[in-house]
């Protein structure tokens, strides 16, 4: 009996370590489950829609989740003040916000990623952004979207399902217009 305990314990410890290694490796890379579903023509449910994040304003007193804007199109844009490629698409996002507001169709929603809040606020002022912004302080919200590099944009429909994804800068204004039309359909 004693002779069997040694190999069993060793095998169990080895299996536990391998499982831990596998979990760690799986946790490392960004998830592309949403991309695969959208490419396959499906509209997957947006993750973490109820996760309350701090609203980025001077008071920093409120928290809100994506579900707060349910009922209209939501253009979720991950950005940061340190992201040099984010600058270029801010004017397009601001124009989109004005158009969405004018048609009561939805909103652009900025999510700042791993950014000092005071720096984000300065950038909002500098770009003259009027759309709401939330802070993803620890990156857990972004991780659920597989966001690992900025900027990234997700267009959600009124039921909070993902219709289109842009990893990297928005390719063209026409891409965003098409994605919004698809989300409204």
């Amino acid at each position, binding site marked *: 009996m004693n002779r069997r305990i040694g190999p069993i314990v060793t095998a169990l410890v080895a299996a536990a370590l391998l499982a831990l290694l596998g979990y760690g490796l799986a946790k490392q890379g960004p998830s592309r489950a949403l991309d695969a579903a959208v490419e396959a023509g499906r509209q997957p449910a947006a993750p973490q829609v109820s996760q309350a994040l701090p609203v980025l304003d001077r008071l920093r007193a409120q928290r809100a989740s994506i579900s707060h804007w349910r009922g209209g199109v939501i253009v979720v844009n991950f950005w940061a003040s340190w992201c040099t490629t984010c600058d270029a698409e801010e004017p397009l996002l601001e124009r989109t916000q004005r158009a969405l507001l004018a048609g009561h169709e939805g909103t652009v929603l900025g999510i700042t990623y791993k950014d*000092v809040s005071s720096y984000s606020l300065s950038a909002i002022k500098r770009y003259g952004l009027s759309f709401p912004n939330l802070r993803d302080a620890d990156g857990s919200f972004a991780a659920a979207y597989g966001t690992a590099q900025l900027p990234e944009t997700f267009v959600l429909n009124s039921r909070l399902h993902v219709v289109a994804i842009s990893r990297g800068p928005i390719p063209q204004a026409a891409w965003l217009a098409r994605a919004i039309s698809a989300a409204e359909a």
Partner: protein
Amino acid sequence: MRRAGALGLLALLLLPAGAAAVKQRTSMSLVLPQVMCVTCQIPLSQAQSPQADDERRYIRQLIDRGDTLAQVKSALVVQYGSAVLALPPDRGFDVTVYLVPVVVVAALVALLALLLTRWRRTPRSAPADGAGGSRQLSSADTARLEEDLRRYD
């Protein structure tokens, strides 16, 4: 007059304690080895990226404001989450960072102890016939051995 003198003496005695209570400002050289670049996931002291530059700028601001090392680290966690710390916190899944090495070492020690115990129980030279003790020669072998030995005499 005597009371004033006593109060003065008391103030002098308390002065070093008061001075020690004044918070100690930290420095970049103390902070940098203890924090990570949150996007590159390498120590901030080695990171070269726009986000790392921003992080260093923020740390510089905190130091200039007079924050202590603990205050700087705490402010960084508020802004970037616990991943900014070079040493992960000892709670949640991160606790495995501390537990796994202990478990592995304990398992190896237990395994070694088990193997040593078994090795010590095993006789150094196992008898060929498995009966233990020295092997008895048959009468034919004994006769042949004696014959051989006589030849060498």
